[in-house]
């Protein structure tokens, strides 16, 4: 069974600065996808970024990028130029050979003005 661990329950960052959220996972599968989802107070889960395990190049979406270390089973999210609207819960998730997403417990990120 897969597990996803987010070791930082809460983090804060000043507006315009950079923050990195950590995620590690455990799996025996070789083909899988990793995701970061954002959940603001509205509860809507929003896909931030996804990474295919077979790709060595780290995924990037505007201010969001990942550091994917397959051997270490690490998948961290870097948010550059943090904005107040980035305040939310961030969940790391794993999808393997089945259809289930396995989620970490989340990191509450607060962006301070």
């Amino acid at each position: 069974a897969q597990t996803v661990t987010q070791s930082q329950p809460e983090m804060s960052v000043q507006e315009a600065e950079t923050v990195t959220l950590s995620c590690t996972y455990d799996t025996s599968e070789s083909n899988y996808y990793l995701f970061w989802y954002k959940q603001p107070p509205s509860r809507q889960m929003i896909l931030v970024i996804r990474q295919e395990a077979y790709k060595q190049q780290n995924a990037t979406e505007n201010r969001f990028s990942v550091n994917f270390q397959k051997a270490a089973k690490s998948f961290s999210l870097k948010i550059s130029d943090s904005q107040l609207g980035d305040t939310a819960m961030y969940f790391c998730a794993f999808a393997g050979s089945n259809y289930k997403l396995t989620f970490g417990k989340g990191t509450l990120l607060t962006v301070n003005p």
Partner: protein
Amino acid sequence: GAGVSQSPSNKVTEKGKDVELRCDPISGHTALYWYRQRLGQGLEFLIYFQGNSAPDKSGLPSDRFSAERTGESVSTLTIQRTQQEDSAVYLCASSLGLATVTDTQYFGPGTRLTVL
């Protein structure tokens, strides 16, 4: 529709009552998923539909929970004889269902269930 919708947004019920939660997936999405999110926790998988077939119900916590789906559209999650531990946000997601490992799941806003 433009996104996954769920109703009601919030539901307060008394212990022992039955509740029905509804999910409308994105049009054209054949796969549909239900998750439960307890306070301060990540999401727990409940059930997966491919079309109107549910090949995996392994996440349903007890036989008080059931779900059905009409064709490739609306799904209903039913909780019978609700208990206080059922209080949570119930999230629905849908995906194209073409290839499971590559599908991205898109989530609805959830239904917050409170059992008094």
